[in-house]
């Protein structure tokens, strides 16, 4: 079972990462900065629990706020540009964050051992869970508590006016501006929310992996963050969930038996999906079909 709990933790954390990009993508912005926010969350929470002996919950909240703060600050200059320029600007941000942690060495002696981030050697011994006797199922539940919370918040706000506002900005900025939406505020808010969510994900990641170094947070991670919502489709948060389960659960884990060929298959599947379902797995048609299908069952009569 331990393996499935571990897998569920990985899936949960990647869902959070994907959703952090999802929020911003609703407004039509493509950000590769999520790896940076994720790193800020991971290191902040790790530093708090390891060097300052915080409990995981306050550490997680603070990490999320710190990541959100950076997202807020970077939001203003970064969101002046869009499209490819934004992609490159956010890559640059995420790389600067990574290089910061690459250069960061902050060691303290805790309980007789030296602990803390140590530049290239990474940040070891982030063992809050194991050291406090958390069973794997408890850790998994803890991770999924946050997954559920984040998913619920996004799902709920997507059904309310806020979701429509975010999507309106994504569909047509000029029109949205003309109907009285403060574009900058909405985008920066989305960026901040995305940063906070990624911060939570990073904090959870650092504690389940027990070790982070700067190489964890490369552009590749940022690419995965946007890959989940794109593959899953931007019509529903469940698309992101499905994409993570497919990639982390099926491709990375389930097909491990394929060994060498698995990663090649990975690229092929992405290409095929995008050609067959450019809007993602949960695109407009699928979502409508699902809704109608479910409605059909509820009411027992076709919904004209």
């Amino acid at each position, binding site marked *: 079972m331990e*393996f499935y709990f571990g897998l569920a933790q990985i899936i949960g954390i990647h869902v959070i990462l994907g959703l952090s990009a999802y929020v911003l993508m609703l407004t039509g912005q493509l950000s590769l900065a999520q790896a940076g926010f994720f790193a800020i969350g991971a290191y902040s929470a790790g530093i708090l629990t390891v060097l300052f002996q915080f409990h995981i919950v306050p550490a997680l909240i603070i990490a999320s706020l710190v990541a959100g703060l950076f997202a807020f600050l970077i939001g203003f200059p970064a969101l002046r540009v869009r499209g490819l320029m934004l992609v490159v600007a956010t890559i640059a941000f995420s790389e600067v964050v990574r290089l910061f942690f690459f250069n960061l060495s902050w060691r303290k002696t805790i309980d007789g051992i030296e602990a803390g981030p140590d530049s290239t050697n990474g940040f070891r011994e982030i063992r809050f869970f194991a050291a406090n*006797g958390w069973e794997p199922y408890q850790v998994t539940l803890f991770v999924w508590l946050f997954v559920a919370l984040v998913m619920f918040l996004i799902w709920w706000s997507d059904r309310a006016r806020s979701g429509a506002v975010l999507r309106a900005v994504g569909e047509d900025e000029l029109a949205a501006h003309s109907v009285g939406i403060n574009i900058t505020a909405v985008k920066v808010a989305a960026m901040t929310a995305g940063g906070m969510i990624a911060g939570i994900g990073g904090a959870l990641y650092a504690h389940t992996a027990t070790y982070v170094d700067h190489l964890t947070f490369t552009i590749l991670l940022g690419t995965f963050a946007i890959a989940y919502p794109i593959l899953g489709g931007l019509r529903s948060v469940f698309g992101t969930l499905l994409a993570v389960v497919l990639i982390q659960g099926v491709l990375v884990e389930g097909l491990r038996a394929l060994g060498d060929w698995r990663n090649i298959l990975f690229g092929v599947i992405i290409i095929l999906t995008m050609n067959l379902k450019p809007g993602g797995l949960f695109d407009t048609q699928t979502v409508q079909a699902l809704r109608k299908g479910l409605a059909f069952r509820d009411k027992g009569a076709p919904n004209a």
Partner: protein
Amino acid sequence: MFYPKNLAGLLPAAACVVMLLLPGLSQAQERTVKIAGWGAKSGPLRSFGVNSEAVLKAAVESINAAGGVSLGDGTRAMMEMEYYDSACNADQAISVARKVASQTEALIGIGPTCSGAAAAMYGIFQKNVDNSGDTGLQFPILTDTAIRPGLAKKSQWTFRNVPNEINMYDELFAWLRENHPDVKTIYGGTETNQAHSKLTFAKVIVQMATKHGFEWVGGGIDGLTGKIGSGSDQVLETTKASNWLMEDTNFSVQARAFKKSRADMLIVSSHPFTTCGMLKEMKRQRVRPKVLVGLTSSSSQETLLGCAAEAEGMYIPTGFAPVTSVAKRVAKAATANGGFADLHSAAAWENAWIIKQVVEETGIMAKPSTLAADRRKMRDGLEALDNVDGLLGSVGRVRDEGESIKPFVFVQATGGQWVVVHDPRN
């Protein structure tokens, strides 16, 4: 009607999820000693995993050909090995460790191949045996490739059989002192975002060189605060221009820094890709030190594929070279399995034989019902080991740290081959 057309895209997904949930357990009738290996078989460090698997496979074949392993009740069992790809990635190494520990009957794991992944993976294991308050994984690991110093003491369940670089460079510089009396000064650089290269450079190579009286002619060293070696008590400003990153392509500034130092001996503490880049740039700038020393990890086939001509003359200490008859056999068997036996992968051979030895010494039963007990016996057996037979001779164990002291030789790149120039065992 349930709109099959639009939902069809989701069906393969559902099928895959079902596939994933199918239990990986297969109940074998015969008793076998199962072991699991994992490492990078995809990604830019694929050669590590390919070589490691090839050697491990060869070792298991040789054990089985010699009659297999004798179990606690006298039954003879074959050894069975399954190899997984963990892509040199922390997440995946952890995931495979969990999978192997909870979904298979493997008695022990051999992997992962990379230091970074190992550093992360060791963290999920129980720190101290018998501490029931620690819920870390309880499964023995005997790592073969990841060399970065001081990892295995993280948990009492983790062991390594990798070269001890401190001894290797200590002896290398002693030997160089004797054989190159005209060499007095040293200088060098490393790839600073590769933990093994950087740590070994700062904390092993430079330390050992100065210990043997070579004079470091640069500034301070990245990753090292305080004095260098025992000779100098002066803290110097860090040498900035002589290092590079592991994916760098332009080495002009670094090679100039090397040249400017006019050192008799130069050190390139780096993995093959950047070792080759740096050596090529040194050749272009006509940097010709009297002695060139490389990082253990570059004593592999990759360096020769990338820059045999430029590496000519470079000394490297290594834990593997086909100098004994068994080592020659291993090298041949590895090539037959599609990999190379080098200092990283050769340990996998020894690991398989160590496992055989521990199984026989501790009376492991290899029954599904005794799995937990067998794993514990395996761990205790590894802990209790003093000496094992290695490819180059007897391999000593460092008890409390789970590390090993391996015999080694010095090789030099000569005519596109690694040639053993000195064998400290003699």
